[in-house]
């Protein structure tokens, strides 16, 4: 190209070429920049959680209940409350979600299932605070604040996730498997329950884990439904403490020990959620590798 310009030919074309490549290089740098910003943010969140939360992660914290200001307290009742409510929500959401997924997979092309699929997709992104308000209107106004109402709001959040993942994992089962079941003379529901569901259990399991990891950190709906409780509570028809609510209440306070406890609670939830996500991701990867 240098030779060309020595001969006195126009170099505008050449110039244009370089600008194209410079632009390409600039965009590449920008792309790497954005990626590194996102990774830095992730690391910053994890680091601040670890630095502030790890010192509170002692045997004492895990085995003692929350205490009034000025006294040493732990996180036992929020941890148990979270476990109870998330567990209850899972127990409620899984059968309904799986059944709805079966329906969607079975009647894929019908108008009603298209509407339901659309609704489920929208429900997945509906602000969770509105679900909390809804459960407040339906349950709390009639029966009062309770862990049960909290679990209901979490179950509503988990339901569409489970239904859609179940549908998707049922859809990728080869039709030959259905046909083999029918060929043995089994009725439709038996084929569904004992042949298709076990074949799709990997995908369904992943969906359930994702749904759990989504509801484990939800705070907004619990504000209006389970209200929080600084005492020990087994009764699911009474207000109950939970980790996200404890974080919300403690992080705003001026007391250093409370702020520290809320960092520890935040660390606990994040580790739990990230572990669930890593497990599902590894599980999906290993299945994909096996299928190939």
């Amino acid at each position: 190209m240098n030779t060309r310009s020595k001969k006195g030919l126009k170099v505008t074309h050449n110039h244009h070429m370089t600008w194209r490549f410079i632009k390409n290089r600039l965009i590449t740098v920008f792309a790497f920049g954005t990626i590194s910003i996102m990774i830095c943010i992730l690391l910053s969140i994890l680091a601040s959680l670890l630095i502030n939360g790890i010192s509170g992660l002692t045997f004492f914290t895990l085995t003692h209940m929350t205490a009034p200001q000025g006294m040493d307290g732990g996180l036992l009742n929020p941890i148990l409350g979270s476990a109870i409510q998330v567990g209850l929500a899972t127990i409620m959401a899984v059968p309904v979600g799986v059944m709805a997924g079966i329906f969607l997979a079975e009647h894929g092309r019908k108008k009603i299932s298209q509407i339901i699929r659309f609704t489920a997709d929208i429900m997945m992104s509906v602000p969770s605070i509105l679900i909390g308000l809804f459960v407040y209107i339906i349950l709390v106004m009639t029966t009062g604040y309770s862990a049960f109402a909290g679990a209901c709001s979490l179950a509503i959040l988990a339901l569409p996730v489970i239904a859609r993942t179940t549908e998707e994992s049922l859809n990728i089962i080869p039709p030959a498997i259905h046909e083999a079941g029918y060929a043995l003379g089994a009725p439709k529901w038996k084929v569904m329950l004992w042949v298709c569901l076990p074949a799709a259990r990997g995908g369904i399991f992943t969906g359930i884990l994702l749904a759990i990891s989504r509801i484990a950190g939800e705070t907004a709906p619990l504000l209006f439904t389970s209200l929080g409780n600084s005492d020990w509570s087994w009764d699911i028809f009474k207000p109950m403490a939970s980790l996200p609510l404890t974080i919300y209440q403690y992080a705003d306070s001026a007391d250093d020990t409370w702020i520290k406890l809320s960092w520890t609670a935040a660390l606990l939830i994040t580790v739990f959620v990230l572990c669930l996500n890593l497990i599902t991701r590894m599980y999906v990867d290993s299945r994909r590798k096996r299928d190939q």
Partner: protein
Amino acid sequence: MMPLKKSNHRSEKKIIPLFFSGMTWFSSVLILLIFLGLILELFGQGQLAFSTFGFDFLTNEVWNPVTKQFSARAALIGTLVSSFIGVMIALPVSFGCAYCLSEILPKKVAKYITAATQLLAAIPSIIFGMWGFFVVVPGMANYVQPFLKWIFGDVPFLQLLFSGGTFGIGILTAGIILAVMITPFITAVMQEAFSNTPAMLKESAYSLGATRWEVMHHVTLPWVQKVVVGGVVLGWGRALGETMAVTFVIGNAHHAGWSLFMPSNTIASLIALEFPESAAGSLKMSSLMALGSVLMLISFIVLFCSQFLLRQVFKTR
């Protein structure tokens, strides 16, 4: 189907299939019912506020529990502006991430970085709130806001946006936190879309001597534009309803001004904060429910559009 066996069927053998299909019908219709109930109940409970204040509910700016005057404008503007800032920041960032992950980096490396960005999507929103409150807010107060003031402080018109005290909280901080939260979603949609572009189209562009950016700009983006718009709108829908993260950093004042540094409010954070102080059945509670139904309306429209766009594209290909 099986005429030979049919005569042996006892009546109870028909009950189980009926029960089973009844269960599947019930479960899926339940999703629909919950959704319809959500809309109807919110509007029903907000009825009192709507009938008391009428259309003024949307246009007034007063929120005064003492004089029993409530209105949505400040919170509505706060919601729209903070989520708009979030989308404006998230859009280029997630485009850069998706471009890097799907076009530049080798597959093996990209896999791990994708996993890392998706972990960001899994972190609960209250954690973002804490991180924002204890890490981002001091940073904004000490470095970013004084810097922005220093640059734009004397520019006409723009100085309106960057006036006010540098406390670190405010709409801008909320927008930044929202951007961090929705970037992984938009990135995931974009990555999916980019990888769905036919390789033949890209390869033919490369063979004409196009650079990587030219292939992206002239081949991939036109091919996937609807999905990308759908993904961005989906991210916007999520940003509209974020509660906990925003509540921590927005400062909570019933005020809507031009400054991005002033404390403001969003519908979701207003509901979360005022709810415990409202008596059931009161006008205030009804106003909160009315706010909720306004939020429901906005996010429904936004999410409907995004699903429509995403669905349309995945159906045709």
